[in-house]
């Protein structure tokens, strides 16, 4: 699967039964359909967050293509109106695309920091987001 932004091949990361697709060059994250639900668990807060998706119709940000079906994705807002995060969603429900830092922001919205699984996998990605010397794929 290729990155939706820079089109480099993405690698898949697995930790504690959670799988995500990750682009090493732009640090974007792709979650297949259902993986965000799996990440968040089925607490009330998670359900509230998942229910807060609203289409961003007059958005000027460049449209990305779904890495699975290649069709253009739509922009959606996540979270309460005060601190919305803009992410990309495949119209055919193949999954969600998070630019660098966006997944962290979404998780921050739901205050999931204390719930073990997510900080373990993702929290620690972001602990050193500016890692140097990563062999940049040419």
């Amino acid at each position, binding site marked *: *699967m290729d990155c939706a932004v820079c089109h480099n091949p993405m*690698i*898949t990361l*697995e*930790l504690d039964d959670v799988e995500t697709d990750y682009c090493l060059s732009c640090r974007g994250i792709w979650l297949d359909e259902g993986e965000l639900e*799996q990440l968040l668990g089925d607490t009330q807060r998670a359900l509230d967050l998942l229910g807060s998706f609203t289409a961003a119709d007059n958005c000027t940000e460049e449209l990305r293509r779904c890495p699975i079906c290649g069709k253009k994705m739509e922009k959606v807002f996540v979270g309460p109106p005060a601190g919305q995060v803009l992410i990309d969603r495949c119209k055919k429900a193949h999954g969600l695309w998070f630019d660098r830092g966006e997944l962290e922001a979404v998780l921050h919205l739901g205050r999931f920091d204390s719930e073990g699984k997510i900080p373990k996998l993702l929290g620690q990605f972001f602990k050193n987001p500016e890692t140097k010397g990563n062999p940049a794929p040419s």
Partner: protein
Amino acid sequence: MWQQIRINKRNSLLLLMGMGTVLASLGFLIGAAIGGVEAGWIGILVASGIWLIMMLTSYFGGDQILLASSRAVAVTPDVHPQLFNIVEEMKIAAGLPKLPKIYIINDPAPNAFATGRNPENASVAVTAGLLARLNRDELQGVIAHEVSHIVHRDILFVTLAGVMLGTIVLISQLFLRGMFYSSLSGRRYSSRNSRDGGAQAILMLVAIVLAILAPIFAYLLYFALSRRREYLADAGAVRLTRYPEGLASALEKIAGTNINMESANKVTAPMYIANPFRGKKAAVNLYSTHPPIEERIRILRNMSHGAALADYEQSYESVTRKKGMIPGSALNDESVEIRAASADKRPVSESRQKREMGDLMRKVNGFSFLACPCGIKMKIPPNFPSGQIQCPRCSRVHTVDKGKIKTSA
């Protein structure tokens, strides 16, 4: 057993002859309809030529055509050791002269098929979805079913008939479309030669009817025979594994998933262990490629006395209330006792199954797997441009060993 194989071989020949006859008469009628009786003979010649070419190609390369059109990939034992182990086991149990080539199809729907020319040149293909869902006993049941198809010489029949059927459908389609377009361009044929215009019109009518009927007729023949073969392969599988419950619960799992196979089509459908197209619940009729899966499961579960062919026959008769279909001589087999279940009863969650299936597909597609000491597992695609990779979690730098897992295709 030998009598059964002989009957199968004879049926294969009969079917091929029948198909040849259909093809030839179709050629004659189409030729005659277009240019009179003399052209009819040329039509036969052309049709026979096509038949011969198709038969030779399908005899020598049919398995490759079918495997390629199902997008099956040949794999080495390190991709799925258990699968190889089971195929080896069933090869010995069935007395095959050579280990069948093993293919995996990248499809989440659980299914399997066997193809090839003879037991020396056979292939078994299973989908990734099947491998992810079944435990060892169930997988053994499915492989035994496929190996039985190989032993019964069903594989050549299905391969030949599949290619043959494709040809008949192709010619009829060509003709029907040709008719459609030529009828748009006016009544040229009948006005040019008014003397035998009436005869030609009749021939034309017959040709149209035949062009419509031939594919239906061919499908019916093909499917009716392939249903009986499924029962026979089930009976053979039970005899090989001595464990009817394995295949029964495998069929149950296969029936329980409502995913259509993306890599199957109408012609390859009868090859699979279960009909690859579900979704709509079709009534069982002459047109269905497979016996109702529930009935196959009931027959298997009804076998309590033993696992010999005669036991299957008995169960078949009591469940379907029809006369049995296994040839007499095969029934005088030694008695076979049903064995106990094996220990492998892993209850796995659906998300884990999904992940295992994903990993299997990645292995088939040549991904490398890296386990970082920090606990993260990285799965790297074969087109990853760099030879080194830094763990996004702990910043350790790893070397990507691209030659580690390779498929043989």
